[in-house]
């Protein structure tokens, strides 16, 4: 192909994909190949497509994604470790017309913040929760998380996770799907173009659920942590497909509306 032909193609009207206008120009601090980047991008694209930039408030967590507020150009609040769903509850109740979403990792959500997420989902808070599960504590150097698979080697389980000593890996998304306050609970991933598009549809659906006041929407994104797992990004994707997907199968766990409060009155009458 000649330069002339390339110039012909590279005209502004021929653009079919470019960086979302909601993502800032600064360089993300994430490691090369990190799934957080793709997930941030999808949130930015969904907010942009729904045209709700001015009405959206994000709650950023503690963990690798603590700086999420530097990258997506919407209003943000920074929560204490694990407390993003509690803060999101407050924000949503004070400003019910806003779209509120939380963004948490597995160390933040499934460990120290397990109580907050379970109770926020049980109350049926009208928020979107995005849960990035890479089965490890990435920010602090690859320690074992509640979601780490049995036998998986981490900085704190150098001989592999042992059930007798470290307990079982936690399927928190399955727990949350049982709660009556949730309307949409799904598990997705972002390792292939098809998976990325599915996850984007899931995030969009979650924001629309919030508009329709259906209840809590919870999206788990099974992710890689190539630095924590100590393999390259391409092998990390393969490892995730071969191992994590077996324990954390993808798909919708719940897609309805939160339970009808009337159906709970029979027990006292």
């Amino acid at each position: 192909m000649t330069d002339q032909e390339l110039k012909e193609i590279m005209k502004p009207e021929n653009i079919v994909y470019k960086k979302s206008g909601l993502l800032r120009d600064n360089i993300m601090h994430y490691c090369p190949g990190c799934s957080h980047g793709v997930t941030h991008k999808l949130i930015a694209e969904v907010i942009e497509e729904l045209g709700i930039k001015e009405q959206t408030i994000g709650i950023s967590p503690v963990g690798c994604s603590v700086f999420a507020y530097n990258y997506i150009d919407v209003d943000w609040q920074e929560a204490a470790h694990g407390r993003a769903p509690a803060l999101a509850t407050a924000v949503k109740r004070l400003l019910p017309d806003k779209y509120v979403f939380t963004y948490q990792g597995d160390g933040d959500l499934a460990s120290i913040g397990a109580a907050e997420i379970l109770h926020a989902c049980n109350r049926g808070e009208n928020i979107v929760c995005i849960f990035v599960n890479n089965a490890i504590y990435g920010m602090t150097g690859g320690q074992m998380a509640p979601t780490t698979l049995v036998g998986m080697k981490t900085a704190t389980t150098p001989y592999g996770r042992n059930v007798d000593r470290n307990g079982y890996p936690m399927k928190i998304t399955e727990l949350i799907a049982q709660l009556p306050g949730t309307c949409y609970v799904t598990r997705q991933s972002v390792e292939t173009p098809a998976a990325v598009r599915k996850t984007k549809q899931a995030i969009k659906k979650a924001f629309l659920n919030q508009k329709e006041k259906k209840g809590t929407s919870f999206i788990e994104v099974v992710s890689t942590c190539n630095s924590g797992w100590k393999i390259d990004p391409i092998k990390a994707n393969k490892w995730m497909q071969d191992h994590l997907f077996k324990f954390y199968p993808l798909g919708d766990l719940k897609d309805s509306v939160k339970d009808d409060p009337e159906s709970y009155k029979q027990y006292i009458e």
Partner: protein
Amino acid sequence: MAEIKGAVVVDVERCKGCGLCIVACPKKVLDHSGDVNSRGYDYVKMVNPDACIGCTSCATVCPDSVITVYRAKI
């Protein structure tokens, strides 16, 4: 006969050279450039531009949103 042709532009300074776009490309258009940017990453470039169909797979999986995709009928 008109043909669908694509082209990608990589924001070299923001690319971290993770290589996820290289394996996502169905036409093997992209590869590491062998050169590094100011931050020391071996960034990605088009090595086989004739094969590009502008499918956006590379840009879709890029964690740092560094790829812009063009597509035209010529």
